């Protein structure tokens, strides 16, 4: 019990011996991982090693995949997210997600932000909602770009702006954790930098886990890094996990070193 309490004081999410299956195929093999509060954790590894699968397991988005099954524990405030009495809807509100391809709703910018609070039973006046929308857009560094066109479609924005809109939308339901699956892979370098700056900003209030294929991004913009690799059965395993500086300058595992120096992958 005491051990668990120290866990949750320091760690927002604690993954213990997690296996993930797609039907009969084991995509993730025995992963244990502690995600630190108010830090940015990067998940890296070659394509197909299961980074997205791990990320989706952290807020039960895998429930939406037919045949997906998770074994083991994911603890969030000492509560196993996969316990029977836990509602995935509640989990996803408190652990938000930003996807690889910007996916704003085909609605106005304003409604994109307001949707989350509304469906979660938000009660407040119109002007309170206006404030909320403005606050989220400011936090996502998008306010100045869109303040004059809140009624326009979210799809009319540039790719980078759309992705920031998706981040703002995720913030609007007041999550504690934000999971990002390659949020910059569809963006140009300038937009990428903007999103990275934004993550640094958001770190003060949120815990962030991000999947990336960009080594520089992981090195620059994360506090911790987890390196995954497929084993012989093509199941993803956690090879090395630690503070980003250590992992990149002084990897303990030969395979990590090979990967980050670009010798395979």
């Amino acid at each position: 019990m005491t051990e668990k309490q120290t866990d949750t004081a320091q760690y927002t999410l604690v993954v213990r011996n997690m296996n993930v299956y797609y039907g009969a195929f084991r995509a993730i093999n025995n992963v244990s991982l502690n995600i630190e509060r108010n830090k940015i954790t990067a998940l890296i590894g070659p394509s197909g090693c299961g980074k997205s699968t791990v990320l989706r397991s952290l807020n039960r988005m895998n429930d939406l995949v037919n045949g997906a099954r998770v074994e083991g524990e994911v603890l969030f405030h000492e509560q196993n997210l996969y316990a029977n009495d836990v509602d995935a809807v509640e989990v996803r509100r408190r652990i938000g997600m930003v996807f690889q391809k910007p996916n704003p709703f085909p609605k106005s910018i304003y409604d994109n932000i307001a949707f989350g609070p509304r469906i979660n039973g938000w009660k407040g006046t119109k002007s309170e909602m206006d404030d909320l929308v403005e606050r989220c857009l400011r936090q996502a560094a998008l306010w100045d770009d869109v303040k004059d066109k809140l009624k326009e479609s979210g799809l009319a924005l540039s790719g980078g702006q759309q992705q920031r809109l998706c981040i703002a939308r995720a913030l609007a339901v007041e999550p504690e954790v934000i999971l990002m699956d390659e949020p910059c892979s569809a963006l140009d370098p300038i937009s990428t930098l903007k999103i990275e700056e934004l993550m640094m900003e958001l770190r003060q209030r949120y815990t962030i886990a991000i999947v990336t294929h960009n080594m520089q991004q992981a090195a620059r913009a994360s506090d911790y890094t987890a390196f995954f690799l497929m084993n012989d059965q093509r199941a993803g395993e956690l090879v090395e996990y630690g503070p980003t500086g250590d992992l990149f300058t002084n990897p303990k595992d030969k395979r990590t070193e090979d990967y980050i120096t670009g010798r395979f992958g």
Partner: protein
Amino acid sequence: MTTLNEDVKSGLPQGEASRRNIASRRRKGAIWRTIFLSATIFGLIALSLLIYNVANEVFGYVAIEYAVDPATLSDKPLDELNKDELVAVLQGNMRKNAFRTLENEKPMANRSDSEVYDLVVERVLKPQTLETWTLRDSWFNKAAIDAQVASDFPEAKLEFRSWISTSFLTTPMSSDPLRAGVRTALLGSLWMIAITILFAFPIGVGAAIYLEEYATDNRFNRIIQTNINNLAGVPSIIYGMLGLVIFVRTLEPITSGRMFGADSGNGRTIVAASLTMMLLILPIMIINGQEAIRAVPLSLRQASYGLGATKWQTIWHHVLPNALPGIFTGTILAISRAIGETAPLIVVGASTFIVTDPDGPFAKFTALPIQIYNWTSRPQPEFAHIAASAIVVLLVMLLSLNAIAVVLRNRFSKRG
């Protein structure tokens, strides 16, 4: 064009051979293009023939004999007279008793201009068609027609007639083709379609949502799905027989309106026909709805779930609005099919001769295709003309529905 590495051995054709290869590929493309063009032209020819055939019957010369020459009735042409003058004509050319009977049925003061005009035609002029000609003959053989009229019907007047007219739309069925109209059939079709949509849309969309979003992929649901797919191909007359057994006979207390205090004698009413049509188009609507729902991108659902939306909230706020344009298009297509269906209506017993407007869901009725079917089976040539006119009405109705579908689809997809 010279190749970059002439010396590299390649499996690809080089130089002259490459040029010949490209030319041959182009030729193949051109052949296919010609085939597709011919297919399009064939379709256009078929369509033109249809329009030609219909137009040929709808317009043309008619030799009409009047009991009284219209020119002798008044110094102005009849259709320029106002109501009072028309009443005067009527009074002056009818027996007193007959006129009084009319006045008692409905006072002249309460009748509209066109009603009085119709009375003049019906009671005074009493036109009779002696011979009709198609548009083609009227156009190219005017001299021959004139000669024939002069020799065969010296008393008759030759008039160029459009068989489709406002009075054709507004007068009910009649055994006299000159005065028959499609009012009853048009109203019957509209009533039937309205009620069909009322039932089929919610049921179809609901079933599509259930099958696409909720039904798990098990044996039972797969059997249901296969059955729906097959039902879409069942001949319509079989639905007619199903409708006869279920709606006309078994549910007679409901479909005859007895339970609602509007008894129409038996179950051969608009509701029974509408429900039968609903059965007929439901499989198409469900399949189409499922396709529209499936086409909603996964990323949109993920975004919604990722914010803590429940399944129903995701369906209601994102899946349905985005599937709606597709659902509308499919609905209209299904409805178009229902409008033109004749066989099930015959089986469930639409009336073939009825002059009273349908006044509600439990009314006896007839419908446009029934009317057309009925008229085309008459031997007198006049009926071919009004059948063609009714076909035009039906086609216009279908085109308007499609136009509505396009407008709705654009409206709803623009919201995005």
